[in-house]
């Protein structure tokens, strides 16, 4: 498959980006200032992320559509308010996760943001589940950029009047240069911020405007350190087709009515995970020293019993220490539990940690 480029590719290049292939796209991993600096700027100021590789799906329909979609997405789509967003998943028959997503109720129906690596498969799954009753569009003409950090609301308000009144996980339609754009107050960094869906032909103009106003471009490298500090899952690593939302400690994303009533793919397994004994749980892991435990590192108990695996690990620039996530046997999942990590054949002490590693309050 040929590598794809986002509409901002040339602009990233002009800003000195280093590129990596990611989910079939050439994406900026970092700019000249480097990952740590980009990470810290996002936490202290405002950073701009190109996430146009992600899928932007629109499904058109009304109450009928909400009923059908609830069969494959375990969130509340019947009472969701117009312009409200929810974090949820596409589940499979075994209760595993095909993808995690953000679904927003829009006037025409539902808008869904999907992971880049999963979007084409998601499209097929949704199409198969819904049949031909509803119009489904995976947008090719729209870019998606995220503006994240404590200064983002103030900066964005100067350009797009009215965004300040958006509440966290809520969106609305705005206009830029006489064209419709859709903005939600959301993100994946643990900071206040916005995701802006904007036509490809306007995105460079808009990005440039933000950059000239002091926003810094941020690559995938810092996006990873930011989301991991915020305790957020990366699909394909921390969650996948064999992890259930309950094991992944994402029960909070399934509202009470759905937990009780079910009626979605994989409910049997998810219900037994909720009611019975979990075999494993996703946890935060904090190494004692400076050692970084990356994906695949084995986790042992104090008495040398193998109890799990790291699924993501890096250095957290804001917490100034290594951080990781992984799955451990349920009995060892309590925060504070001492564990051992095996990195390159050597054993290092670590502790189960609360998530997130880095806490910041969102605007609600």
């Amino acid at each position, binding site marked *: 498959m040929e590598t794809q480029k986002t509409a901002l590719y040339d602009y990233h290049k002009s800003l000195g980006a280093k590129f990596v292939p990611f989910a079939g796209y050439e994406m900026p991993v970092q700019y000249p200032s*480097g990952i*740590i*600096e980009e990470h810290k700027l996002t936490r202290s100021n405002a950073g701009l992320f190109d996430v146009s590789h992600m899928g932007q799906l629109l499904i058109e329909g009304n109450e009928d559509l909400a009923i059908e979609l609830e069969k494959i997405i375990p969130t509340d789509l019947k009472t969701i308010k117009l312009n409200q967003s929810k974090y949820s998943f596409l589940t499979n028959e075994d209760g595993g996760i095909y993808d995690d997503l953000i679904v927003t109720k829009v006037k025409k129906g539902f808008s869904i943001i999907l992971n880049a690596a999963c979007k084409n498969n998601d499209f097929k799954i949704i199409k198969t589940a819904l049949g031909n009753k509803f119009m489904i569009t995976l947008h090719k003409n729209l870019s998606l950029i995220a503006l994240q950090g404590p200064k983002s609301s103030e900066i964005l308000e100067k350009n797009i009047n009215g965004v300040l009144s958006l509440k966290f996980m809520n969106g609305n339609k705005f206009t830029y240069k006489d064209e419709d754009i859709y903005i939600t107050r959301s993100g994946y960094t643990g900071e206040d911020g916005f995701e802006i869906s904007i036509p490809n032909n306007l995105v460079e103009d808009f990005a440039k405007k933000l950059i000239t106003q002091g926003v810094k471009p941020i690559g995938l490298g810092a996006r990873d*350190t930011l989301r991991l500090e915020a305790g957020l899952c990366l699909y394909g690593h921390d969650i996948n087709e064999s992890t259930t939302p309950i094991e992944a400690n994402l029960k909070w994303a399934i509202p009470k009515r759905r937990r009780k009533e079910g009626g979605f793919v994989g409910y049997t397994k998810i219900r037994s995970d909720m009611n019975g004994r979990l075999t494993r749980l996703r946890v935060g892991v904090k190494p004692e020293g*400076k050692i*970084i435990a*990356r994906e695949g590192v084995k986790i042992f108990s104090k008495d040398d019993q193998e109890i799990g695996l790291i699924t993501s690990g*890096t*250095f957290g620039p804001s917490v100034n220490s290594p951080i990781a996530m992984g799955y451990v046997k349920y009995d060892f999942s309590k925060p504070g539990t001492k564990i051992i990590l095996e990195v*390159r054949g050597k054993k290092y002490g670590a502790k189960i940690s609360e998530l997130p590693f880095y806490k910041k309050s969102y605007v609600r």
Partner: protein
Amino acid sequence: MSNKKFSKQHEWVSVEGDAATIGITKHAAEMLGDIVFVELPKKGKNVEKEGQAGVVESTKAASDVYAPISGEVVETNQSIIDNPSKINSDPENEGWFFKLKIKDKSEIDTLMNKEEYDKFAKESSN
């Protein structure tokens, strides 16, 4: 600066008599990005030419560090363990990794000079 030699694994060697100081090149540090963790060989350990002699980790990934020549480790740089970012800010000076008592001086001749290395680095990054 001029008496430095370079390996294909992007280490530099500076020789003074029987002793060699070793580190990773500016090019390698730039390619790795922000370095956040270093593991150095133990003092007294004998390392082999092109054998694994340490690890550097950036925010992105872990990479092995190889010994460009054989010898006995006589000193390691504690300051880069305490402050790994020194490797990014001054890779070919204060960011040195370890010192060796050279086993076989002829191994030095197999390494590249600065001009050769710069050309090699440029080609390998394309």
